[in-house]
C-alpha cells in the first residue's frame, strides 16, 4: 500500500505505541509464533545444514537465473501452460485485465499473492470494473476492512477477534457481537464457497517454480488456492522472477524449511504441484520483474532475492513486533521488506533500513541465510550517499566525526558535555530531547577514565 499519509516508520510506530496493551498483545502473539518455529527447528538436528543447503541452492539460482527462467518457460509451455512476462507492476496488472476481458469475465477469486499486493492489482482491477475477492481468510478480513495485510503470511495478525466479528457482522451477516473464531470461520467458509463455485477465473501466487519440469507449487493451510483454481476456467499464476528453483528434488529442502520457519508447522495442509492445466481449462503464468533484475545487479543486496517469503524475520524482529507491519508503509514489511523496498523507491523507503537496531535475529532465523542485518547497515550507507538523510543529521555526524578524530577536541568536548550534565541538567532534561521522553539521562561522573588513568600514572611516579 502506498503511504497515503506520507508518514515515516518512526511516526507510524509512535502512533502504534500509544496503545501499550495492544502492542504487548501483538508482540506476544508474534513471539509465540517465533517460539513455535524454534520447537520445530530443534526437532531436526540437521536444521542448520538444511538452511545452508537452501542458501546454496538459491545462490546457484540467482547466478544462473536467465538460464533457469528460459528452462522453466520452455517446460511450462510444453506442459500446455501459457507464459507471459511483465517488466513492471503496471504491465502485470494489464496482462491480468486483458486475460479476463478476452473471456468476458468481470469477477475473479484470488488466493494469497504478496506480488499482487506489491503491484496493487486489486485497486487496478477495481478501477477497470473487475470485482476481486481474496479467498485467504486473513486476506478477506483485511479486504473487507479496506486495509492492506500487515504480515506476508498472517495478513490480519494486527486484528482482534472482536474487530473481525464486527467486520463480518457488517459485511457477511454474522450475528452482532459474535467473536468465536470457529463461528466466524464457518461464516467465511460458507461465503467463500459460494464465491469459489461461481468464479470463472482464479488468480494465485507461486511459492516455488521448478525450472526442470515447468511445474509450480502453491502452499496453503486453507485449500483456497486449489478451490479457486480447480473450479475456474482460467487459472492465472503470478510469480516474481526469483521464485525459481532448479529441480523438483530441491522441494525436498524448501518444503522442509518453509512452514517450519513461517508458522511453526512441519508443513502446510496442502502443497499443491501444478504442472498441466485441467482438460478444458487454461493455466497462465505471469513472470514479473518489477525491479528484481535491478536488485540482482546490486552486489551488496542481491541476496535479498533468495527470500522464500516465510515471514520468520518479521516474527522474530523486536521492532516489527512492537511497531506492526503497517508502520513500514510497504507491501512486504519487516526486515526483508526494509532491504527490498529501497530498491523500488529509495526516497519513499529511506526510513526503513533505520527502523532496526541491527540485532541480527532476522539473519539467523532466515531459512535461506539472507544476511539481512548486514544489508540494513549497507543500505544506510547508500541512502546517506544518495542524499536521502536529513541535513541536520549530516551536520551532526560531521561535527561528531571531526571531534572524534582529534584526541584534544574529544577530551575537552567530553569534559564540556559532563559539565553541562552536572551544572545545567535542564539543557538536556527537557521535552526537546527525545531520549528524555521515557528515560533518565546518564549521570555525569567527576572524571573520565582517561583523567583517572592520568592521575594514577602520575601517582605511580
Amino acid at each position, binding site marked *: 500500500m502506498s503511504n497515503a499519509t506520507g508518514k515515516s516508520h518512526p511516526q507510524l510506530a509512535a502512533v502504534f505505541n500509544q496503545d501499550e496493551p495492544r502492542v504487548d498483545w501483538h508482540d506476544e502473539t508474534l513471539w509465540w509464533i517465533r517460539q513455535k518455529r524454534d520447537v520445530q527447528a530443534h526437532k531436526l538436528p540437521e536444521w542448520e545444514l538444511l538452511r545452508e543447503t537452501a542458501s546454496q541452492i538459491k545462490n546457484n539460482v540467482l547466478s544462473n537465473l536467465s538460464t533457469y527462467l528460459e528452462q522453466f518457460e520452455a517446460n511450462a509451455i510444453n506442459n500446455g501452460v501459457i507464459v507471459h512476462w511483465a517488466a513492471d507492476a503496471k504491465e502485470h496488472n494489464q496482462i491480468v485485465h486483458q486475460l479476463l476481458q478476452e473471456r468476458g469475465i468481470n469477477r475473479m477469486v484470488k488466493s494469497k499473492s504478496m506480488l499482487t499486493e506489491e503491484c496493487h492489482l486489486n485497486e487496478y482491477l477495481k478501477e477497470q470494473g473487475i470485482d476481486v475477492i481474496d479467498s485467504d481468510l486473513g486476506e478477506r478480513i483485511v479486504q473487507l476492512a479496506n486495509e492492506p495485510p500487515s504480515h506476508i503470511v498472517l495478513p490480519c495478525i494486527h486484528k482482534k477477534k472482536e474487530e473481525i466479528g464486527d467486520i463480518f457482522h457488517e459485511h457477511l451477516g454474522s450475528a452482532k457481537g459474535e467473536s468465536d473464531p470457529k463461528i466466524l470461520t464457518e461464516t467465511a467458509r460458507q461465503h467463500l464457497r459460494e464465491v469459489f463455485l461461481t468464479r470463472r477465473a482464479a488468480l494465485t501466487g507461486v511459492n516455488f517454480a521448478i525450472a526442470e519440469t515447468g511445474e509450480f507449487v502453491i502452499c496453503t493451510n486453507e485449500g483456497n488456492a486449489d478451490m479457486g483454481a480447480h473450479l475456474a476456467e482460467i487459472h492465472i499464476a503470478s510469480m516474481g522472477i526469483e521464485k525459481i528453483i532448479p529441480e523438483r528434488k530441491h522441494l525436498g529442502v524448501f518444503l522442509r524449511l518453509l512452514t517450519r520457519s513461517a508458522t511453526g508447522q512441519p508443513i502446510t495442509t496442502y502443497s499443491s504441484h501444478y504442472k498441466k492445466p485441467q482438460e478444458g481449462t487454461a493455466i497462465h503464468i505471469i513472470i514479473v520483474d518489477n525491479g528484481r533484475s535491478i536488485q540482482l545487479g546490486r552486489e551488496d543486496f542481491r541476496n535479498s532475492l533468495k527470500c522464500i517469503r516465510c515471514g520468520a524475520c518479521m516474527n522474530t524482529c523486536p521492532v516489527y513486533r512492537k511497531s506492526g507491519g503497517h508502520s513500514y508503509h510497504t507491501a512486504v514489511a519487516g526486515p526483508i521488506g526494509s532491504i527490498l523496498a529501497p530498491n523500488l523507491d529509495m526516497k519513499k523507503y529511506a526510513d526503513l533500513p533505520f527502523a532496526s537496531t541491527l540485532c541480527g535475529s532476522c539473519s539467523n532465523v532466515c531459512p535461506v541465510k539472507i544476511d539481512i542485518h548486514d544489508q540494513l547497515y549497507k543500505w544506510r550507507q547508500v541512502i546517506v550517499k544518495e542524499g536521502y*538523510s536529513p541535513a541536520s543529521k549530516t551536520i551532526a555526524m560531521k561535527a561528531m566525526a571531526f571531534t572524534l578524530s582529534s584526541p584534544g577536541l574529544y577530551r575537552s568536548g567530553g569534559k564540556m558535555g559532563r559539565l553541562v550534565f552536572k551544572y545545567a541538567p535542564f539543557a538536556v532534561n527537557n521535552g526537546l530531547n527525545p*531520549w528524555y521522553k*521515557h*528515560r533518565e539521562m546518564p549521570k555525569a561522573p567527576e572524571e*573520565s577514565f582517561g583523567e583517572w588513568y592520568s592521575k594514577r600514572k602520575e601517582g605511580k611516579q
Partner: protein
Amino acid sequence: MKVALFVPCYVDQFYPKAAIATLELLEKLGVEVHYPKNQTCCGQPMANSGYEHLTAGCNSLFVDNFSGYDYIVCPSGSCTLHIKEHLHSPEKEEQAVDIRKRVYELTEFLIDVLQVKELKSHFPYKVGLHQSCHGLRGLRISQMSELVAPAFSKPAQLLDMVQGLELVPLSRQDDCCGFGGTFCVVEEAVSSKMGKDRVEDHIEHGAQYITSADLSCLMHMEGILRRQKSDVKVIHVAEILNHSHE
C-alpha cells in the same frame, strides 16, 4: 603479552568505573595493560547511522593508537565487533587488518585467551544477564537462541565463578534491549518500549542487578529503571568480576 585497553568513548566519559574495573581485573590476572591515551572512538555511532564514509579520521587514529600490541581488549561487545568488521585505513591497511585479528571483547578474552577457570570475586546478589546483540550474534560470545546448536555463554561462565552470585532465568534470553545507537532517538517510541520490556523481564524474575558486556544496553536500561524509580541497578560485567577480588 602486551595488552592494550580500548575504552569506548561513552564508557570513558560516563561509565569510567567499568573501564577501571576492566583494567584492575586484567592486572590482577597478571596482564600487563597499556592504555593508549590518545584513543577516542571506534566510529560506530557514525557508521551505523550511514556515515561510515566519515570515519576515516577515527580509523586512522585507532590504528595509530593500537598498533604493536598482542591483544586489544575492550569492555564492549558492539565496539569490538565494529572494529573487527569495519576497521580500514587506506594508508595503513596492513596494520588495520592485523588489529582486527587482535581485538577482543573482555569476556571472550578472559575465557579464550587467558583461559580463566576461577575468580576470587564476590557478588552476593541476584543478577540478570542481558545478552547484548552485537556480542551475542556478532562476536558469538554466547549461543543465540535462533540457532539449532549447543548452548554456551562466556559471560555466564565467568559469572558462575563469582561467589554468592545467583543468575536469574529470563523469559526471553536474547531479545534486543532497543538501544541500537541513534535508533534510540530516531525511533524513540519503539526503543523505549523495547527497553521497558527487557527491564520488566529482569524485574519479574527478581534481579537486583542487570549486567551485560555492553554498557550501551545498560545505559539505555538504566535510563528506564531510574525513570521508574526502580531499585534495580545496572552494572557492567567487569565490575562484578572485579568485585571484592584480591
